[in-house]
Every structure is written in structure tokens, then in C-alpha cells.
């Protein structure tokens, strides 16, 4: 675990600076963040509050009828500790209206629809409140592709996307995120008893250590086995990263001209800022 230990005070300062700089220079003062009751969105909200002040952070809770009640309670706990103004927008009527047309839809389709419904609520609030949507996906999820494209992965800026889950937990402790949120098992909360680690088939502690050596340190498969990872685990995670690469890139654009968006038309997003 020591490989993944971080100096939390440095990282908090760096990420608060990132939020302040990137929000203000595009002419905004405020962010809006979807609070799920989990640790990732809590950490994003805590960082944003540090960066911009509580009056500039709006929390939105978006429960579905099958969400466990503790999720909403924990999201409120986080918002209240920070003194944020928050609002609850139930997504049940929107999601159910759609699936009344497709009653046989499976849980995957329903989960994705919920994530994308929440995205539309957040981006509507972005326009309503003149606030940028703050992302809440961590590096572990991004690398494993464990998120819904254009759903929970959609945002304007993401302060925690380069932190592994186990590093988010360290930061959460430093930021004094309520213990109840930090200690509960991570879950997408689509059905009762669902947990990330149950669904993925490994723990965050295990996979974060592997990802650190594989991605950050660029160890080969042989080198990874030599430091104690099983061949099967390495292969499984490598395959998962590769097969979800599309989620980490813009959609493919068929090149026909001399200068194509995102290929040889290359400008930073902060162009002129």
C-alpha cells in the first residue's frame, strides 16, 4: 500500500488550486456536483468547497426509487457538514416514463439510463445556475471503464480522475469527510446489496496496486508476476483496460480533410484563457 500513499495536504492544495483556476478562467464562479452518498462525489464536493467557498458549490442528489435510503441520507450528511445548499431531484419519473415503453429492459440498460438521466439533470443545472459540472470519477474507475459513458463519466472538470480509489480514501480522511461515507463499501447503488468490489471480482486495494505498477510504472506482465500478481489477475485487468479504451477518448471521426478535429487540429482546451 505504501506505493499508493500520498501527501494528502499537498494533493488537496493542488486540486483546490486546479478547481479555482480552471473554473474562474473560463468565466465561472460556481460548480454543481451530483452527490451520491459515496466517497468520490463527497471528496469532489469537499475540494470544491475549499477552492470556491460553500456559497459557490451546489449539490444535487438524484435518487431513483430503488436507491437505498442511506445513500440520500449520507449525501445530505456531506452537504450539511459543508454547509452547502442542496436540492433533491428524483429521477424515478423520467426513467420510468422511458422504460414504460421498454418494460423488458435489463438491469444494465436501466443502470445506464439512470446514470445518463443524472447527467442531463446536472448539465441542466449547469445552465440554470451558471455552474460547471464537477466530475467524480476516480482513476481506478476510469482505467477499468467502470462507469457509464456520457453518464457519470460526463463532466466539465474532474479533480479526482488521477487519483486511485485508495488515494481518494486517504484524501477523504484528510478532508474530514464523515466516517460513515468513508467506511461503507463502494457501490453504484443500482440494486440492493450491490458493491463495486463484488461486481469487479477484486478489491480496490488489490487492483490499485496492480494498476500503479502496470500503468504508472509501466511494468511488463513478467515484471508484474515477479512482484507477486497472478498471471490471471494481470491478464484480466489488462484486457479490461484495453476493451474500455473507447470510453476514455472522443468518438472516432472519419478523416477525409487535411485538418481534422482532435487529430491534426490541435489546441488546448484552455485556448486563450
Amino acid at each position, binding site marked *: 500500500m505504501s506505493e499508493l500513499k500520498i501527501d494528502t495536504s499537498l494533493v488537496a492544495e493542488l486540486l483546490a488550486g486546479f478547481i479555482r483556476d480552471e473554473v474562474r478562467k473560463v468565466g465561472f464562479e460556481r460548480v454543481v456536483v451530483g452527490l451520491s452518498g459515496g466517497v468520490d462525489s463527497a471528496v469532489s464536493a469537499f475540494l470544491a468547497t475549499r477552492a470556491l467557498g460553500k456559497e459557490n458549490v451546489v449539490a444535487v442528489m438524484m435518487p431513483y426509487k430503488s436507491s437505498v435510503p442511506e445513500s440520500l441520507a449520507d449525501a445530505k450528511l456531506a452537504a450539511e457538514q459543508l454547509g452547502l445548499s442542496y436540492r433533491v431531484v428524483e429521477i424515478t419519473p423520467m426513467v420510468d416514463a422511458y422504460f414504460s415503453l421498454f418494460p423488458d429492459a435489463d438491469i444494465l440498460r436501466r443502470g445506464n439510463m439512470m446514470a445518463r438521466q443524472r447527467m442531463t439533470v446536472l448539465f441542466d443545472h449547469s445552465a440554470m445556475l451558471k455552474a460547471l459540472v464537477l466530475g467524480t470519477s476516480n482513476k481506478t474507475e476510469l482505467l477499468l471503464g467502470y462507469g457509464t459513458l456520457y453518464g457519470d463519466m460526463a463532466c466539465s472538470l474532474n479533480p479526482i480522475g488521477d487519483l486511485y480509489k485508495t488515494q481518494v480514501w486517504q484524501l477523504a480522511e484528510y478532508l474530514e469527510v464523515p466516517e460513515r461515507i468513508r467506511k461503507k463499501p463502494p457501490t453504484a447503488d443500482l440494486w440492493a446489496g450491490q458493491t463495486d468490489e463484488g461486481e469487479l471480482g477484486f478489491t480496490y486495494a488489490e487492483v490499485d496496486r496492480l494498476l500503479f505498477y502496470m500503468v504508472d510504472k509501466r511494468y511488463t506482465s513478467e515484471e508484474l508476476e515477479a512482484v507477486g500478481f497472478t498471471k490471471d489477475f494481470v491478464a484480466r485487468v489488462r484486457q479490461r483496460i484495453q476493451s474500455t479504451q473507447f470510453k476514455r477518448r472522443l468518438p472516432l471521426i472519419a478523416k477525409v480533410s487535411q485538418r481534422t478535429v482532435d487529430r491534426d487540429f490541435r489546441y488546448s482546451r484552455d485556448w486563450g*484563457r
Partner: protein
Amino acid sequence: MDAKRTIAVAQIAPALGAVERNLDLWLQRIEEAVRAGAQTIVFPELGLTGYFLRDMVPDVALSVQAKLLQPLLEKSGEIEIIGGFVEEAADGQCYNAAMCLRAGRVEFVHRKVYLPTYGMFDEQRYFAAGDRLRAFPYGGAKAAILLCEDTWHLSSGYVVCCDGALILFVLASSPARGISEAATPASTCYWELLNQIYSSFFGVYVVFANRVGCEDGVSFWGGSEVVEPGGRVVAKAGYFEPQLLLAEVNAQVLRRERRTTPLLRDEKLWLVLRELARVHNERAKD
């Protein structure tokens, strides 16, 4: 060298690709530095343009005759100005460059020799590489300018120090990266070590000017510093925040250190040249 000189380091957060806005920022810092009695002010690498320019490079490039530089040239009668910009050469090539303006003229231009093109860096795609490492006249003696990655090639510092530089102006746009249990990012640790090494083993002042601010999620860590010969940090700016850092460079300190530890005096250039020529020839044969 002049007995004492006050140097100001402008640790700024330039806007990306907004040259005129950055020029205003430079002029403000220059005013402050003049008021503080500085003889020289130093701005970071690409301090006039921002760093991740990509396809904007030709749009922000300036020839050394550009009208836009006129307000700076005027100010250079009051204070010497050293800082990074994109230089458009006569043949249209663009360089990641640094200028020294003095008494109304462009005294010296250094073009970055080592353009990092690996990991998060892509400079060689956009810039032509410089092909000179030279000291230039400064304060009755000589100084040299190195741009960011130049400094990571220890040979660059070796050459300009052998060429007589007593002060190394190191201009950087160094991103904060590599978090761990350490209280500073890995990139910070490397730079602070480098500045120590140059000042300790070449017996020079290192004036390190790094920028702050964010570009596309990349944070620049600042921490500008002036390190005296022998490695003592005489002035240090904070991390991540803009600041005007002031420091005095003192000819006596330089002289004393060079007498105590006369490493450069004892350099055997003929030996280095002979052995490098041999290595070069042997490599060419492979």
C-alpha cells in the same frame, strides 16, 4: 561582476495564447521590480505565451523586431528583462526562446536546445531546436540562459559555465507531477536537486524562474528560487501562487566559493574534448 545586483523573479501565471494580456502582466511586474530596486527581472519559460500552445505556436510567435515588444524595450532602459517567448526566425521557424532586453535593445536570445518530446511533452512537434549554448555579457561579467529541459542535460550547464557564466538564469514551465508520501511532487524534488547541483559544482548563482497556474488540468508548481554558489538557497518563492521574488547576487560570495572549491578552474577542457571526440567517433563507426 558588479559587487551586488538585485534580481527579481516574476513567478506568474500567463494566460494560454493571450500575448497582449500577458504583456500587461509583464509590465505590471516590471513596475514592481523597478520600485523594489531590482536591476534585472526574470520571467519563466514561455512567460509571454503560456505553455501548452500546440497549434497556436505560429499565432503567438514574434520576431525580435516585433512592434509588440516595444513597451518592453522601452522599459529595458530602467531594468534588464529576461523572459521566455516564442521567437519567429527569419526563415519562419518557431523557437521556444528566451530574450535578454537591455538599454532599449535585444541583447541576447537563447533558443531552447533540448525539446522534450516524451510523456506529457510534445515540443519537438511544434518548435525548431536551437543549436547554441553560449554565455552572454551580464553585469560586467557573463551569464547564461537555459530553458527548462536544457537544464536536465547536465552538459548544457557544463558548457555555459565553462564559457564563463557566473549566473545561470533557468527559465521553466515545470508541471507538478508524481505524487507520493513526499511533501512536494517528484518534479519539484528533481528541480531543487538540479539547482543545488549546478550551484554547488559549477560555483554559479542559479536564478530559477518557474511559472504557476493551470493549463488543461496541468498545474505548474512555482517554487522559484535563487541559489548561491555552494548550494545555499538565498530566496525561495512559495509553491503554486504568483509572487515577485527578490534576491541579491553578491560578487564576493561568488569569488569566495570559487577560491574555496575551484572546480571550474581545474576543468580540463582538452581532456573532455579529446575523450568526447573519441566517444563520438566510436559511436559513428557502430
